[in-house]
């Protein structure tokens, strides 16, 4: 886990909170279990111990912990959803077993690439995710969570790279023979500096590149082609 964007940071913080909580609870339960195993007295009032174990620990303790966690997770999740705030939209189209992208080029015109997605660093962007055949999953672990690419059911996914760099991405939903090789890369460039040439990565391109890329450009809805 090396989070490289605010959304990934949020997830990482949620994770560390949960890990510490889970570690404490596991320890607690194991200590209780060890004491229960080693205790050797048969004394006790069944009604009282039922109150303690079932209502105290089983209901009280569990409900409190869950409510706190759920509140925290909802608060985290609210801030990660794609929303209509004029953020940059790029398009990711999955096919067996290759990713095609359309993103605004240096002059604001859409540019189609294969295997590499170019986005400016430091700005949130929405990925419009589609599939031409089976279900795939769009995932850049360092930038945030994943979203499925489902035929007939486009999804919008909010991400952001805090700093310029190259981030590995991969297909996360099993999609057949080439699933393990269905990788891509996100290049986050410095919007203030010179914009890099948008090129497809031959390493990450398994089919003859760009054969169907023009279709992608014409497919792109007009409102998404903004700079």
């Amino acid at each position, binding site marked *: *886990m090396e989070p490289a964007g605010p959304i*990934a940071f*949020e*997830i990482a913080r*949620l*994770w560390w909170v*949960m890990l510490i909580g*889970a570690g404490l*609870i*596991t320890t607690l*339960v*194991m200590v*209780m*279990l060890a*004491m*229960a*195993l080693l*205790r*050797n*007295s*048969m004394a*006790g009032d*069944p009604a009282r*111990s*039922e109150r303690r*174990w*079932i209502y105290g*620990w*089983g*209901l009280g*303790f*569990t409900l409190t912990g*869950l409510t706190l*966690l*759920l509140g925290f*997770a*909802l608060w*985290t*999740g609210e801030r*990660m959803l794609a929303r209509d705030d004029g953020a940059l939209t790029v398009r990711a189209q999955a096919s067996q077993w290759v990713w095609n992208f359309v993103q605004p080029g240096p002059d604001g015109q859409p540019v189609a690439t294969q295997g590499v997605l170019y986005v400016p660093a430091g700005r949130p962007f929405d990925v419009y995710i589609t599939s031409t*055949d*089976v*279900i795939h*999953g769009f995932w850049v672990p360092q930038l945030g*969570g*994943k979203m*499925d690419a*489902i*035929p*007939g*059911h*486009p*999804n*919008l996914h909010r991400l952001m790279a805090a700093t310029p760099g190259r981030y590995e991405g991969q297909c*996360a*939903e*099993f999609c*057949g023979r080439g*699933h*393990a090789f269905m990788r891509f890369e996100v290049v986050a460039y410095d919007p203030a500096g010179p914009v890099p040439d948008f090129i497809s990565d031959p390493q990450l391109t398994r089919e003859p590149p760009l054969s169907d890329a023009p279709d992608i450009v014409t497919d792109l809805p007009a409102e998404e082609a903004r700079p």
Partner: protein
Amino acid sequence: MTDASLTSGQEDTAQALADIASNPPQRALGLHRQLDRVWSDLPGWRGFFTSVNHGTIGLRFMATAFVFFAIGGVLAMLIRAQLATRDGAFLDSDLYNQIFTMHGSIMMFLFAIPLLEGLALWLLPKILGARDMAFPRLSALGYFCYLFGGTVIVLSLLFGVAPDGGWFMYVPLTDKTYSPGINADVWLLGITFVEISAMAAAVEITVTILRCRAAHMPLTRMPLMGWYLLGTSVMMLVGFPPLILGSILLEVQRAFDWPFFDVARGGSPMLWQHLFWLFGHPEVYIIFLPAAGALSTIIPVLSRTPILGYGALVAAVIGLVFLSFGLWVHHMFTVGIPHMALAFFSAASALVAVPTAVQVFAWIGTMWEGRVQFRLPMLYVIGFFATFVMGGLTGVMLAMVPFNWQAHDTHFVVAHLHYVLTGGFVFPMLAAVSYWMPLICGRWRIRGLGEAAFWLILIGFHGTFFIMHLTGLLGMPRRVSVYPGNPEWEWLNLVSSIFGMIQSAGFALFAFDLFMQWMFGRRSWRNPWQAPSLEWAMPMPAPSYNFASLPGPRQPDAGAMLPLARGEGLLPGAPRGWRETLVVEPGSGRPQHVAVLASNTALPVATSAAIGSFFAMMLAGFYWLAPLGILATLVVAWKWGAIMGTDRDHAPVEVAPGMQLPLHWQVRNTLGYTGTVALLVADSTLFGSLLFGVGFLTVVAPNWPAPPSGIATWPMLVMSAGALTLMALGALAARLAEARRATGAAFWTRLGLLCCAGALALLGGIALGLDDPTRHARDALRGATVAFAVVHGVIALMLALRADADARSGRIGAQRRGAIPPWQLFQLFWLGTSAASMALILTQEVL
């Protein structure tokens, strides 16, 4: 025995005590010989094909499940061998896909579910105080469907055509375009064939718990295991139909191109995911509940104290049953679903931790109150705690949507699900096997082997899967066979692989231990754990008939071993040469009648072979021959009806001094009637899932509205109205046939039969008038609803035929109803669902 619940219950049963007197004692050996002659299996290989005894079938289920567990385990080792290095060249991508798909499918459908079915079949009558399950032939039918289906699925691996689309079989990857081979058909048809056994077991377990308990054992004081298995079977009745429907629809899409899941023609791949996970999540609790039941049985016995909070545990079971049906969407957090739905299902998924936590703390509290004995089953209980608690906590983490988006489909989830399933199912089941093994084989285990196996399994398991959490957090997705660009994952995977081998060695040693115990263990003394429950009130190993006389209020627990063996309980011996057991009222346990159960017969194996021939034709693609399989099934099904009637009135049976009960032929509310109701509950869920499909596609799928329909309005309306009228008339005829049974049912059964045939003919006309089902999903769904009506019409027709034949052969009389009551139920169900379907189509046409 210091059992507080028994002492407190004694006042309540005081009145019942007055009701049922003890039978006079007899020689135990004489009773044993008499019963054994009636109840034992045929000798040799004939016994294998004809046994219907719950003990035999239950053990066979469990043994077969462990064989499939071994096969699934070998596949797991192949996966670990492949992933041990980043460029593993051991399996190619195609083979790897087949292997992980088969590992998941085998472990779920051919190991976990059948093992719990086997345990339930073997154990339930013993703890409830009955001689057999409610439907012995159904047990055997389920077993052979499981055996045949499972064998075909595993053999497909040898021929290289095993399913390779993942155990969840997501479309479109599994449709004809992207999976042209028969691999996906093997899964869809094979698993559906195996699911017949799950549905059979679900009906049977439900009815047995409700109706086949000891006299005056109220539902509210039955052993906790009964509650857990009742929860399980109700969940199976409601949970499996969506999967069965989904599999049928997908197979019909593959075979006949009906576009239920095809986006271009109004279908949606999301429909499959909903149907699959509507089953898939309850499935986890279906597996967990029997295991938890075993824990609730074993922990108090080995802590020498009663269980803490019986009522709270029952409430927890009921809570789990309900909550588990509100969780399925948490497998779909990454498919892009509405915002509020995410929050709702996230909360529900977290909430399910509450009843689980209640149970965990009740078990710890029980051990706290008692004095724990460190016997082998207790070691596995400790293994359960050490594993399951962590699995539950990672489950809560995954219920949190932001984290789920990150960890979904990574090895973190692989680690989580193995912690939950091994912790929550395998460890308790190993505890259960070692706990009940003395009753199974009558022998005591050999010291040392079991402990060694336990430590190997525990260390191997945690070594394999604990580190896998980290592998997943570092970004390794599931279902990849190589990871050349990620050397940082390599050592983690290597560690998992090495410990995986240690774990396998542990399981092998466990199996070896069982074998040694069975062959060479010393004879166990009776009730070796000094447990209170009734299964220990019988000789060891357990005899085919369980109890020489059935327990009543005077014989409430394991202490009644001798009186029961001497025939002082109810219904001693087998003086009429029949397999008899007591049937009680569901709530109170008041004895109602005596059921005569089926004896050894080859009918179940013949029936499963007939059903199997249908599946085989479908699998081979000989679609025009498949109706022959259906015909063969109907022919054998006809023979099953024979037990529903008798041609003369029988005298009531003296169950205990002064207590006369009728035989099941002469009562209305038989086991078969309750079973029909349970089956119709499952059937309603199937129909409900179909309606859900119609609603879902109409609202969510793209490419709607459908093209204008070419249905000829008036002829279709007239045929629909005619069909519904005939169905209603049939139901009325069935009712009158029962009312007039003393004087002459034959006229009414014949009329009902004609109504059924007429309604079926009209349904055929409607089917011909529908639009081409391959055109659009709406038309395909209409075809499916009409097909549903036709199938139920055929069942109603079969029951009407049975009733008519009974009426004509004098098997219906003033006291004897034959097959008429179940026929009425099916007729009404047919009418209701058909009316709903036709109203739906009409609404679609008008709107």
